[in-house]
Each structure stands twice: as structure tokens, then as C-alpha cells.
């Protein structure tokens, strides 16, 4: 049995990797993937804690993870559509090029 701390450590690593990816990467798709990584880190934390608590309290964590998955899917739907529209208007996905609104 994997100890809860190990799961939580992995989840924290994923979260920070996602955060770093969000802040450092330049491609809009990779930035979006980093956000998904953070959501999955939250899922992992939910599941790890759910197993730690067990019983009725544990159910909350399991169900929460499902909701987060559903929301992440909806987010991907809207987000990818916006990213496609972005690519169509400027033929690049570099986030540094997205700066028509700065002055």
C-alpha cells in the first residue's frame, strides 16, 4: 500500500510543475495543458485524502474528483475552441505574440 504522503508529494509536484509550465511555456496549447495538469493534481490530492479518511467522509473526495473531471472536460471544450479561434486570427500560438491589447 502506497502511503498517503507519497501520493500527496506526487500531487504537489504535479501542481507546481503545472504552475511552472503555465508561467514559463510560450505555446498556448502547452500553457493550457499545464492548467489541466494542475486540475489533475487536485484530483490526485482529493483521491489520496479520500483514501486516508475512508468511509462516508471518503465518498466526498471521490465524488469531488468526478466533478473536477467533468469541469475540466467542459473547460477543454471551451478553451480549445478559443485557442483555435486565436490561431485562426493570427496564425501563431505563441502567447508572447498575443498582445494587441497592451498600451
Amino acid at each position, binding site marked *: 500500500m502506497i502511503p498517503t504522503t507519497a501520493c*500527496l508529494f506526487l*500531487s504537489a509536484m504535479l*501542481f507546481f510543475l*503545472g504552475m511552472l509550465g*503555465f508561467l514559463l511555456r510560450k505555446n*498556448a496549447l502547452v*500553457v*493550457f495543458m499545464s*492548467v489541466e495538469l*494542475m*486540475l489533475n*493534481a*487536485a*484530483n490526485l*490530492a*482529493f483521491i*489520496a*485524502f479520500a483514501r*486516508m*479518511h475512508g*468511509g*462516508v*467522509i471518503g*465518498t*466526498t*473526495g471521490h*465524488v*469531488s474528483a468526478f*466533478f*473536477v473531471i*467533468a*469541469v475540466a472536460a*467542459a*473547460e477543454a471544450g*471551451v*478553451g480549445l*475552441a*478559443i*485557442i483555435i*479561434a*486565436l490561431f*485562426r*486570427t*493570427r496564425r501563431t500560438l505563441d*502567447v508572447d505574440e*498575443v498582445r*494587441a*491589447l*497592451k*498600451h
Partner: protein
Amino acid sequence: MSAFSNLVLSPMLLPAMPASTVVLPSFSFHEFQPLLPAALLAITAMLLMLTEAFSVSKSRSYQAILAVVASAVAGFLAFQNTQLPAGLILNGRGVMDGFSSWITLIACLAAGMSSLLALGFFRQRNAERGEFYGLLLFSAAGMSLLSVSNEFVTLFVNLELMSLATYALAAFWRRGNRSVEAGFKYFILGAFASAILIYGVALLYGATGTTQLDMLYHVLPKALEDSPWLVWSGIILVLTGLSFKIAAVPLHMWTPDVYEGAPTPVTALMSAGIKAAAFVALLRVILHIGDSSAMLLHILCFLAALTMVVGNLLAIAQRNVKRMLAYSSIAHAGYILIGVAALFAGGHLGNKVGVLSATQMANSTAEMLRSSALQGILFYLLSYAITVVGAFGVLAAIERREDDGAPNAWDLSKLSGLATRRPGWALAMALFMFSLGGIPSTIGFLAKLYLFKAGMSAGLIGLSILGVLASAAGMYYYLRVIVYMYMRPPTVTETGIRHWSTEFILAVSAVAVIVLGILPGPLLDWLSQASLFSPN
């Protein structure tokens, strides 16, 4: 407490209960009453989406009218709910109180008014497409549901319902450079913020074993002793995620870009509705997790001060009116944060006094502080919604189609001489600017007065004085708009196209700004009866 509160499992009972004995919850009809406005909005939204799929008609005006009617009926239902007693509904997943009903009313108001603005706005640009009104109503339904959420995952899902619809609305001109960019920035930063929020929720769940706010309130002090690191990281992550949505400094960077790039009716919806709904979420979370530490009050006050000062300073430097209004909305978020801090300080004061002397008097003082702060916040949100929709309405009216892609589309010079070209619009804009700046006899002045008064009586004297000074500094950029409209010769000859729906919104908002600014009595009476669910 109402009859169904015994359905709610107390946190002490939870661990002892084996999974096999979970009783299926039973709901009574009146528990669904606070959800009716949201249900109506969501059903109408689905209907609008379906009409878009099946109808062959070119004109989309009927969709706007349907959206306005649905918002009006939902707003009426919400208004009837404002007198509801405070209590938990749906097994503790939601709350029923006057506060959430008022926020629902503001959301319906914002949705209805921006639908009307959009009707004329998109008609002139031949950009009418049916998803717009459906998405707009989905967003309003999300706002309404967000205001009744009492559980973190429910709150998260409703926050996303509201936000996802708005991301799509911001990028609605999918061929327009600026609109898509606004949608993209809003989406990517919003998704980042909600990921932070949900990670914080996961940590709080790990530390306390619950995601329900009222239970969290009871078990948090013990969890704070057991695992302070986990709880504090959870609280900070959750508050970070929510501060992004209200655009508190230092998480405000998205606001000017998104407000500027989004189609103007969408900007009106965002500044009036989303802001109000996000504030309720923040307020509920703070009320439930805040009592465990006085440090949170300091954080809140610091955030309020920073938001007011930075928002106003950045607005002063702006020549672009739409961006200026975006920065001013940041400053207004700072003022409302004073109210949130006052509400929170009132409760805190009450707890402390209750421990020391436990007199009835002290408790009633704390109660009074709370209710005056609550009244202040609600009045402010309502007044800001009315005023800012009107202000963006004027911008939508004077906006020219060929300016859509231009970088100086909303430069101050576009407003010069508006008083000679369109005296009615100029007068309305002047009223909105007076109200946003807080000139007496407008609704904005009273809103600031009540908010700062609540801050003063809760003991936040320094913060309230800073608020007054900041709003005095803010007068500069509001008055500059009026100077351009009335004292500069017109530089453009084009007057902007009139449409009955835009003019209707301008007239209604302008009249409301003045009438409620002079006779706020009945509204204040209603607002003072609004209840707020509190866990203790």
C-alpha cells in the same frame, strides 16, 4: 432553524457512520425555491440554444426579447425570495437567505440589461448569432447558483458554469483580433485561478474531512491545531483563486485587457454581474473560514487598501475610456472589500466580546454591525451594477463599427463634444460618471456613504479614510470624461446609431441613478431585511 436542518449530518456524527447506513436525503419543495430563478434562466438558455439549431429565421431579436423576459421573471422570483429566512437547503449543499436572493436579482438585472444592449449593438454590426443570449443566460444562472452555494465543490462547479459561458462571450467575435485575445486571456488566467482554487479545496478537505462550509466552520479550529500548514495553504490557495475573480490587486492584470477586448455588452455583464457573484462566493468562504484567525482580517484590509489605491492610480493614467472603466472597476472592488472586511470584523468583534462578557448588548451591537455592513455591500453592488451597465451602454452606443479593430477605438477624444452631438447620451454619461465618482444626489454617493459608514463603525477607521481619499482621487478621471464631453469641440462628426433598446437602457439607468440617489428609502428598507446565513 427550519424544519429540515435536522437532515444535515453534524460533523461529530459523520465518522461514526458506516457507509452502508447512508440514508437517501429527502427534500421538500420549499428547499427548491431559491433555485427557481436559476432553473428558469438555465431552461430558457437551453431553449435559446435549441431555437438556434432549428430555426431558419434570420432575425434574432426574438431571442433577445426572450432572454430579457426570462431575466425579468427570474428577477421577480428572486425578489420574492428576498424575505426568506436564513437556512440550509439540499442537505447543506446550498443556503437560502435574503443575501443570495439579492445577488440573484443583481445577476438577472445585469443579464437583462446587457441582453438589451446586445440587441442594438449586434444588430448594427450584422453580428447577431443566437448562442449569445443562451450563453448570457447560462452565465446568469451560474451567478445565481454561485450565490446559494454552501459547499466547495458546488461552488467550484457553479463558478465554472458562470465563467465558461463568459469566456465564450468575451471571445464572441471569433474573427475579431481583440475579442478573441480577450477571450483567450480571460480563459487561460481564469482556468489557472480555478485550478488554484480547487487545489486549495482539496487541501482543506484533507485537513478537515469536509467540503461543506458550515461544517468546515466547526471543525476548522481543531484542524488548524492538528495540521496548520495544510489548512493555511488551503485557505491561501482558495482565497487566491477567488480574489482573481473579483479582480483584487495583485490579481487584477487580466481585467483591463478582457474588459477592453470583449464586446461592450459582455463587458457590462462582467462588471455588473460576475463581480457581484464572485463577491458572494468570497464573502461566504471568508465568513466560514475566517473566525479561526484574526490574521485573515489583516490580509483582507491590506488587499482592500492595495486594490483601491492601485486601481485608482492606474485609471488616472488611462486615456482609453473602456480601459479606464476597467481600472475603475478594480478600484470599486477595493471599496466593496472594505464592506467585506467590516462584515467580517463585526462578526469577529462579536465573538471576542461574547467570550469576554457574554452580554446581550454586545451581541446585538455585533449583529447591528453585521447587518449594516451587509446592507452596505448589497446597496453598493446594486448601485454599481446599474451605473456601470449604463456607462458601458453609452460606450456601446457611440462605438463605431469600423473602430472594432482599431487600437484607439475608445480614446477620450471620441467623446469630445458629445454634448452637442447627442445631448441625451452626454447627460446620461455625465450622471453615470458622477455616480461612479460619488457625487451627492446620485446613487453612487449613497452607496459609498453606507459602505464607508459600515467600515467606520466596525472600527476600520484608517481603511475607510483611505477609501474616501481614493475615491476623491478617482474623481479626476471621471470628471475628465465630462470635460471632454462638454468642454471640447467635437473631433468626429459621426454621432453613433440610435437603437431603441440602447436608449431604453440609458434612460432607465440614468433615472434609477437619480431617483435611487435621492429616495433610497424603500430600497434600503428591503435591503436591511436581507438575512445572511451564518454558521454560529
